[in-house]
């Protein structure tokens, strides 16, 4: 298998999906926990219109903060997200060809679709599908979205989520994210060169310095602003605040200030916002 760089992985995936009917979107400019939170997935997966997009999404999981010391766990990482709506008959084949384009040959690597149904309590969303394993390692999530914001998806969108760092580690034959070759043109640049300091500083913030009073206030304010904008029929603007509340919740959680029963309550509040945004979006019929 040819060792391709991190940015080449992204370029090849983008190229593949352009050739297979997707437009390339840019990452959403808000802090999100996964590519799924991008309005291109949450809102656009609802409603009857066709929608075929691919995009990189930087994602934040404060709970995974490890100061960059852990070989494959980061509080900030990249997902490559593909939405195909309606899900095409040959979606599995497309996925397999996409990883072939990265040099992973399904004839030489044991690729498996292992049951994994996805659920996001904060988005009121769920889907059925698989983890995709490559020689025992999970490299992607493959989901047929059944409902988002409590609303059924018709037609159904197929969501492919690639773990870019995972893929890079596999393709480049290494074990530590710091060694990932980010670029192979001219001077070699590693992932550590680009992101290690981020990991360190943000881990410190997430675990030790995030001001919980400010966060609690911000959560309430985001909730308030979201509801207000829904009343003004601006679901896209409102959704920004829903995303914001979800990220704030993740931060509060990683600071350890939310108890088990409180957690259920916070999740319910974010879900409520998500439902409002989705319902409003559907009503607008865009």
């Amino acid at each position, binding site marked *: 298998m040819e060792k391709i760089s991190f940015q080449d992985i992204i370029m090849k995936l983008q190229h593949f999906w352009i050739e297979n009917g997707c437009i390339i979107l840019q990452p959403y400019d808000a802090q999100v926990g996964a590519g799924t939170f991008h309005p291109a997935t949450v809102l656009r997966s609802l409603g009857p219109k066709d929608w075929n997009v691919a995009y990189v999404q930087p994602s934040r999981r404060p709970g995974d903060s490890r100061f960059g010391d852990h070989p494959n766990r980061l509080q900030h990482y990249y997902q490559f997200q593909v939405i195909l709506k*309606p899900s095409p008959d040959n979606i599995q084949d497309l996925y397999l060809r996409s990883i072939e384009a990265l040099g992973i040959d399904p004839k030489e*690597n044991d690729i498996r*679709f292992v049951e994994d149904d996805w659920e996001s309590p904060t988005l009121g969303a769920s889907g*059925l599908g698989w983890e995709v394993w490559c020689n*025992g390692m999970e490299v992607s999530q493959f989901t047929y979205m059944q409902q988002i914001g409590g609303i059924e998806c018709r037609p*159904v969108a197929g969501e492919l989520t690639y773990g870019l760092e995972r893929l890079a580690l*596999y393709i480049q034959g290494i074990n530590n994210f710091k060694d990932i070759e980010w670029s192979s043109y001219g001077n070699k640049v590693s992932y550590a060169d680009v992101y290690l300091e981020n990991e360190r500083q943000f881990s410190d913030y997430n675990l030790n310095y995030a001001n919980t009073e400010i966060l609690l206030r911000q959560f309430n304010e985001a909730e308030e602003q979201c509801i207000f904008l829904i009343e003004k029929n601006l679901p896209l603007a409102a959704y920004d605040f829903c995303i914001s509340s979800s990220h704030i919740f993740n931060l509060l959680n990683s600071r350890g200030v939310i108890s088990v029963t409180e957690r259920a309550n916070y999740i319910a509040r974010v879900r409520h916002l998500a439902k409002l945004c989705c319902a409003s979006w559907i009503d607008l019929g865009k």
Partner: protein
Amino acid sequence: MNLLLELYSEEIPARMQKQASEGFRNIFIKKFQELGIEYEEIKVFSGPCRITLIAYKLNEFISLAAIEKKGPQVSAPENVIASFAKSCSVDVKDLVKKEISGNSYYFYAEESKTVKLKEILPNLIENSIGSYVWPKSMYWGNYKISWVRPLKNILCLLDSEILPVNYGHLQANNFSYGHKFMKFEKFSVNNPEEYFTKLGEYLVIADDSKRKEMILQSISKFSLEYNLEANFDEKLIDEVTGLVEYPNTLIANIPDEFMHIPKEILSCAMIQHQKYFPLSDKEGKFAAKFIFVANIISENDKNLIKGNEKVLAARLADAAFFYSEDCKKGIFEMSEGLKKITFHANLGNMSEKISRMVEISRILSNNNPDVIMATKLCKSDLCSGVVSEFPELQGIMGSYYAKSSNLNNEISFAIKNHYKPSGANDEVATASAAFVSIADKIDSLVGLYIAGERATGSKDPYGLRRYALGIIRLILENNLQINLKKLIDQIFVLYKNNITDNNQLVTLKKEIINFIEERYKNYLNKDFDAKLVNCLVDLNFCDDLTIIKDKLLSLTNFLQDNKGKEFIQSYKRVFNIVSSSKIDKYQEINNSSDIYEEDLIHIINKVSKEAEALEYQQLLVKLYEINPYLNNFFDNLLVISDDQLATIRRISILAKYIKLVDNFAKLKGI
């Protein structure tokens, strides 16, 4: 004739395949039976992408029995009659009228006829496909049908003829598809007989029992070759069989540096997370090798092996890192973290729970120091790195950390087993572990009740029933004489800071006792007659659960005996007379001029006195001594007589008998 039906889809969850095979088989058996279709055998095979049904030796012609279906009365509203006709797939004019008991009814009548199997099969098959309910199903694309995963193709042949089966957007054909990764081509199947061979050519082993056999044989072969043993659950083999269309069983290595980590971690990582088969040497120690099953045969099996080795090594590296950090920290320091873990929003944190549990353990074990220490530390592993990665190892890791902090075996044993029983079928903790387990469960049960949590008919999110049942089993199987009522009172004192309404205390305690009583009865009902259980459990059961069980045994045995049967007959007779008499005020009779009354009173009083000192078993026999006197009483006296006074007297004596018996077994319940 042979029938072949293949439902080809995207990967079906391994855990659902077997059930689906059985489910489909049963559906077809039932439908064939309904229509009188005879067959030699029906077999259903499952795999990640296929459910295949083959029915052997069907008859070409089926005779359908005559049908007569009763409909509404002729005088019924038009729409009712019309809908009946529709349900029989005919027009109203095709219905016949028949008189029954003076009323005229519509009937649908069909004479018996002979049809060709191929005419009725398509409909039958369509209905059958639709009637299996997957545990979870989904929609995809723009299609209207739902299935466990996207259904892509239906192959349906009756001998070599394609049956016109339609399901949603799919129309049956004679195609199938080869191995998704090794030979993904479309090909035709000409008849049911060639199905397996044809699929085999395209690298698919459609017969799951064959795939399983292949895997087992490979495992045996490796075991022999390396002089190792593979110990695994049937469930794992079945799951792995359901993850491959063509099994390629391979053996791989575990880096030596990880072999020192606790075997439960190795097991968890290999089995639960990666679906690998661990191997052990003849002494039962984990070997530095594992077996896994790939879905492809490649020229470069080395690549597959290396890849899987890397993944496992990464997981174990994580685990080893956490384990060593955890051991360095030590179980005592780990315990500090309990303050940060909430038990319940209204009941404080785990550290506070542990404090209460320690007090309870103190009471239960009579200040046994090992039990107390084990209780102090039993939840500390919740703050460990390993448990955060492998939550299923709670308790087990605690025992390792205890050992690593130089605590004795008794303590680590108690920590390891204190969750048992965690399910109705789980084994029960013993010795010191039993005390910790009871302390944990009863603290949770009482606390959650105080916090307002309850188990309803449909939901029990906190597992209150499991806690109660666990406590009961622990007490009975360890034969512990625990006064639950007293214990619960003591626990309420421990929770005094969490109790908001002191007026509700009595009601709340009663609720808890009743809840436990229900579970206790349920538990006993499994082995004993529910009516007998009811008779005995009402009597202050919570003073000592073990006594009740012994009594039940004695009572059950006694009543199976001839004496016992006589006894119960007598009792019933007396009970019926007393309860149907209109007398509600009984007299205290201690002697009488009538000899039969006198004898009966005398024996009742005698037995009353002697009974106190007897073992339950002997007591029952003693009660039987009264029977001959009862017989004499009834044979010679009229209980309900014209003499009012005599009647009152006699009823009173009989009531005393009832009262006596009920002291020992509330038989009025029967």
